[in-house]
């Protein structure tokens, strides 16, 4: 009886939340598929949205591994490279392979790779694991440079993106590539969201919070860790495909260097660990803020200093902002966002 009453009392609140969530999702859809393709400028799509989407997806992938499962990895850009070069080769070698299949196969290659380089996680933790994932970074770059086959024997080792089409519809225009990118990101993010709210997702968190305790209560730690590596690498691999095919449209192995891995790691730290929203907020911060600063700097002082001085001072400002942010909110932008929402909520009520 008491339980029933409690349920009845809670029901209206849940409905309101559901409606709110539905409205938010609808708004997101309208913006992503209506407003952006119709009104966004070429610059916004090519220079901001495409890198933002690819990096967000990579951050979602890494967040699954590092944020949820607690396994620190510095191999993200290697997995991106495997995805990008995998997709290029599947597309090149198999005639008439649909784009979606190419991307999934590329993701699976990256996942296989992730599992192999995830094996040390069974014995190593924390920084030691991070250092061992560095091996992935160096190995992939070495292999892609060493064996010309991967880049179809292009002398300079640069691959260029193939013609993109889904069901005969060309996606080569900026809008087409954007739509491909945003759809991929949405689908994979939805899947990840389902995953972290499932039993497997709770296993991830259990392994992160206390491995011994997780083992005691019957979580298959071994399998969970490898699964985290596999799924995370799959997603990062597809992010690599987006980076190569929709954003840059040409890729060299050196483009996937350690800097990129660090960039993705910083995205999830700044955005908020174990938060899907954090991956997007962090990516927006890392992609958009430097551009904003450089535009602002050029606008305010463009005539006074040359672009080199401006670039240097912009880095100083960016560094300072990151430090201030992390002092003010060590749990990242996502937590900051929640705090802001609560404050607005309490004010309006």
């Amino acid at each position, binding site marked *: 009886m008491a339980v029933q009453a409690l349920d009845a009392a809670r029901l209206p609140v849940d409905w309101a939340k559901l409606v709110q969530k539905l409205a938010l999702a609808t708004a997101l859809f309208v913006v992503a598929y209506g407003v952006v393709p119709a009104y966004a*400028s*070429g*610059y916004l799509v*090519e*220079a901001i949205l495409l*890198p933002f989407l690819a990096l967000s997806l990579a951050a979602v992938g890494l967040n699954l591994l590092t944020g949820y499962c607690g396994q620190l990895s510095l191999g993200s850009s290697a997995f991106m490279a495997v995805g990008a070069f995998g997709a290029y080769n599947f597309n090149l070698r198999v005639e008439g392979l649909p784009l979606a299949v190419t991307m999934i196969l590329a993701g699976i290659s990256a996942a296989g790779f992730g599992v192999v380089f995830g094996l040390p996680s069974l014995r190593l933790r924390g920084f030691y694991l991070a250092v061992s994932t560095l091996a992935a970074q160096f190995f992939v770059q070495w292999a892609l*440079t060493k064996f010309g086959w991967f880049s179809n024997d292009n*002398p*300079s*080792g*640069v691959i*260029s993106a193939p*013609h993109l089409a889904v069901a005969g519809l060309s996606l080569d225009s900026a809008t087409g590539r954007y739509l491909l990118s945003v759809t991929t990101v949405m689908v994979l993010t939805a899947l990840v969201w389902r995953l972290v709210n499932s039993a497997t997702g709770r296993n991830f968190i259990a392994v992160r919070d206390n491995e011994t305790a997780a083992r005691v209560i019957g979580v298959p730690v071994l399998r969970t860790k490898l699964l985290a590596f596999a799924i995370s690498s799959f997603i990062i691999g597809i992010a690599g495909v987006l980076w190569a095919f929709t*954003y*840059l*449209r*040409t890729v*060299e192995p*050196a*483009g996937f260097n350690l800097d990129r891995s660090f960039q993705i790691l910083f995205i999830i730290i700044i955005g908020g660990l174990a938060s899907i929203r954090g991956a997007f907020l962090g990516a927006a911060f890392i992609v958009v803020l430097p*551009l904003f600063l*450089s*535009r602002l700097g*050029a606008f305010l002082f*463009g005539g006074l200093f*040359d*672009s*080199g*001085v*401006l*670039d*240097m001072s912009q880095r100083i400002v960016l560094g300072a902002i990151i430090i201030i942010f992390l002092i003010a909110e060590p749990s990242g932008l996502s937590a900051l966002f929640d705090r802001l929402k609560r404050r607005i909520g309490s004010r309006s009520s």
Partner: protein
Amino acid sequence: MTFFSHLRKAAIATAFVLGATAVHAEEQYFPLQSYRVGPYAAGGTGFFGGFIDYLNLINIRDGGVNGVKLAWSEGETQYEVEKGVEVYERLKSNPGIAAWNPLSVGIAYAMIDRITDDKVPLITINHGRTDTTDGRVFPYVFPLLLNPYSETSGIVNYIASKEGGLDKLKGKNIVVLYHGSPYGKETIPIYELLSQKYGFELSQIEVPHPGNEQQAQWLTIRREHPDYVVLRGWGVMNPVALKTAQKTGFPADHIIGNVWSNSEEDVIPAGDAAKGYTAITTQASGERYPVVQEIVKTVYGDGKGNLEDKSRIGSVYHNLGIVNGILNVEAVRIAQAKFGNRTLTGDEVRWGFEHLKLDPARVEALGAKDLFHSINVSWDNHEGDGYVTFQQWDGKKWNVVSDWIAPDWKLLRPIIEKSSEAYAKEKGIKIRTAEDADAVVSN
């Protein structure tokens, strides 16, 4: 509220300022993806400095090209592909774009599809993707003066001349030390081909970007005991190579630098280790050329010089920027003669580049005699048969030690066509004819 009203006032004021500067007379615009910070800043500041100095000279001395003023703005790329693409997207909305000059192979690669869609020329002077020489497949890309294969051929021919003829190369041992980037790797197949053709032994060793640690590579070289080392470096890799060579006991006068290892910035930091080092160039260094003198007098005299350090005037990169300026401006001038003295479209400037023929007499008239030799671009040859020369560092300055040498274009052309045709097939590009090249988009 007051904050927002302030903000609105500021926004309106900004809009006015922007609107006021947006009104222009006839102008031809050069978007510059420059790099003034990062490991390659020496190349970037020198090259873009020279380029801007020449554009300034044309504006101040001549009032523009036939009355059309030259305009430009810069975006910092740090030689990084992502930043280069961002700057491209940012600057491409400016009206009257003449040509892009990114001075980075990586950025140029990422731009090929984009500029082909936009129908605006992409200039990769002395570098770039070799097969873009074939204008039949790459209508908008111009590796002017010297593509990487011609450079390779020029270097091998020079080594042969030092040894007493191409037949003397047989059995010689040459090591190529290359920068681990698309630029560095571009010549791997052509060195291999020339090694088979002339029968010299060859090993090619990579130095990972940026190249400030080369102990292992030079120990390998020491074991190999080569007759010559070709240094295909870039930025900080070059002085480190020269210093490490000295440490491992390899003589500097048997190291031949390529066209991106030939500047003062490459040898001065190496100090004594660079004495005797020889490098290829398409444009001589020094201030004695009339056009450089005019820049010193008119542009720097006016306080509008771009180089902060005036001792770099006439350096290799600065002079390359000036030559690049000459080629860009002359392409605009040639296109104006056909299409009228007004702001041209990118496609019209492309036509200008495809008719960019400067014989030694015209080069002298431009005040650049001995600065560079000549150029002869056509619709299907986008390199333009540039000549090379070799200069040796004596510890203080570069001295020219050879005549103008012609690379073996006949040998290279079939290889280039094979590669470009394969690219056309992969991308489904229709091979252009002379008639296609004359169809120009003018709106």
